């Protein structure tokens, strides 16, 4: 049956369909973008509508340093992937670890900021509309950073155990794509919260 099918036509030119890991991750990113969009819309809609409590202008400090950390981690993970593709394992491991450190620094920054907002300014998720939308949006992003850091750490552990090889670069690239997404979301969140919203 299928042999007969081949006899009817010439074997088609070999073509390369996209790597399913990439397509799967791209689809996940599209879905996640939709979730973030809704939170961003809520944030933008409620700007200036709080009835009480601290306003963004009063309490927010622009986290420039930690933003630079996070965005540079996109560079480091990119080079880490490239190193793995070329088989340079030690470069891969160092750049990968650097990515994790930069991401963790960002999380520390977020933690510090939240501590300051809660304890010095009394802004919590239930204080007012600004509090609700701010903690939800930044928190959703932080959750995704944390999930990413966990996955990056798992890969690091495998890498340190010597089990990550050049052939795995496509899978590692899929994870890097997720990490780039998380950084891109931060660019949007940063703009909306620290620039537009103030």
């Amino acid at each position: 049956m299928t042999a007969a099918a081949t006899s009817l036509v010439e074997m088609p030119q070999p073509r390369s369909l996209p790597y399913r890991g990439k397509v799967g991750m791209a689809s996940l990113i599209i879905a996640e973008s939709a979730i973030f969009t809704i939170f961003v819309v809520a944030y933008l809609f409620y700007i200036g509508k709080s009835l009480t409590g601290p306003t963004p202008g009063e309490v927010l400090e622009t986290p420039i340093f930690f933003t630079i950390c996070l965005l540079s981690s996109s560079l480091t993970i990119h080079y880490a992937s490239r190193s793995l593709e070329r088989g340079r394992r030690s470069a891969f491991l160092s750049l990968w670890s650097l990515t994790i450190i930069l991401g963790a620094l960002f999380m520390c920054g977020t933690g510090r900021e939240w501590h300051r907002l809660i304890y010095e300014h009394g802004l919590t998720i239930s204080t007012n509309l600004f509090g609700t939308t701010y903690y939800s949006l930044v928190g959703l992003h932080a959750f995704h950073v944390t999930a990413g850091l966990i996955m990056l750490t798992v890969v690091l552990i495998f890498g340190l155990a010597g089990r990550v090889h050049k052939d795995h670069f496509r899978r590692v690239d899929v994870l890097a794509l997720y990490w780039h997404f998380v950084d891109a979301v931060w660019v949007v969140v940063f703009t909306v919260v620290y620039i537009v919203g103030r």
Partner: protein
Amino acid sequence: MSSNAITIPGIRVEGKPWLETLHEWVTTVDHKRLGILYIIYGLGFLVVGGVEALIIRIQLMHSHSDFVSPQVFNRMFTMHGTTMIFFMVMPVLFGFANYLVPLMIGARDMAFPRLNAFSFWLSAFGGVLLYFSFLGGSGLYGAGNAPDVGWWAYAPLGARAFSPGHSTDYWTLSLLVSGFGSIGTAINIIATVLCMRSPGMKLGRMPLLVWLYLVMGGMVLIAITPLSAAQIMLLIDRYLGGHFFDTQAGGSAVLWMHFFWIFGHPEVYVLVIPAFGFLSEIIPVFSRKPIFGYPVMVAASVAIGFVSLSVWAHHMFTVGMNSYANSFFAITTMAVGIPTGIKIFNWIGTMWGGRIHFKVPMLFCTGFLFQFLIAGLTGIIQASVPVDWQLSLSYFVVAHFHYVIVGGILFATFGAFYYWYPKMTGRMLSERLGKWHFWLFLIGFHMTFDVMHIPGLLGMPRRIYTYEPGRGWDTLNLIVSIGAFIQAIAILVFVWNLIVSYFKGAKAGNDPWDAWTLEWSTSSPPPAYNFATVPVVASRRPLWDLKHPEDPDSRYE
């Protein structure tokens, strides 16, 4: 896999302990088995949701009836809507996707088999969680309550202040969980279609069902997620003191409506687009002609996917948007009818000049065509905004959307059952029982849903547990309820057919319908690996080419 042929477990598999069979099914990652699991799961909830509908209809047979209390009634309509959409139609459609998509593109499985299994069990858990609310939720009036806020859970009705206890949380969490399952399946479908097609299967040669599932997958990614986001916001409001929808703190109830309907409207297109896929496979085979206008059908499907993202606020015409917003959503809603109409014309164009065999799958598809036409037209009527100011929130809308979902989607799905059951089980469903199923269901459907438009025109709002006598609604509601019982009998006939034919149905062979797509080239049921050698195709109808080597499609495409 220990056996070559995948069969539904039963008494017939000799020598294998039932526990081992059960274990195989629970741990399976095979797309065909997961497809069947999804379908059986959905059928179970069809019966449960149907019982809820019957309770509603018994209560509404007479004015001032006290068959159930208002509290129970409100739970019934909430659960009926939530169940039918999320735990009946979605699983059944995902089931068919799982089963058919890899077979139709010549692949051996979906792109991510373990994600596939995970998504199924996640969605299944969601359904169980929702029904656990009858036991575990403590609602407004004592322990053990299911959600009663309507399947939209409008703010602020869903807030802690108006829905104390946990009944609303069961709604939120079960849908959040099954939503993630749906996203997983959508990712799988997209990756499978884009990355796993067999040689020669260009995008332009895929069966239309595969195209339509690709569009549906894309829509699930961006339509289900707004609901997930809104539900997270609702949980934050209910448990962390958030104010997303807290009107006392300056929050907006209308914002919930926007978020819900940004999900809710594309969701119904998520449901109907696979039904379009079923029609696009069944009608050509039973008309003995290729689908009329394949490229236009693809374009129309994609167009529907995009335009349907812009119509959501037609569910909110009475909420008090300004006249410009109302006009915008009026025109987008009318516009989405255009590619939809084009598809109807193309299906008729497929039948035109054909030699139509009215086997049961074709009967159901013909029913779809009449009924979906009417449903689309009542949709256009409601798109005329001022008319919708009267019709919205009334039984006219309830009649309209049941016309789409039951008269359209369910009819097409029944057609799909009769068409692909032989492939899945190796047996034909009984034609005789199938005809009984069709005619009984047709009569019951029309008795209920044709008549149901009228109380809406006479001012009967929806979601009311009782109504005043003397408004002209009594007799009409009685007729509607009788039709519901006739439909219930038809469903019983269908379930009986499914069971009896499994044991006694005629053997189907590979290709009982003389069809043209790849799934009919392998055995019924297919082996675990689907195809012995990976098929190579040269046209949209590879089996037509094989059966008609003197006149293959590849010459014309």
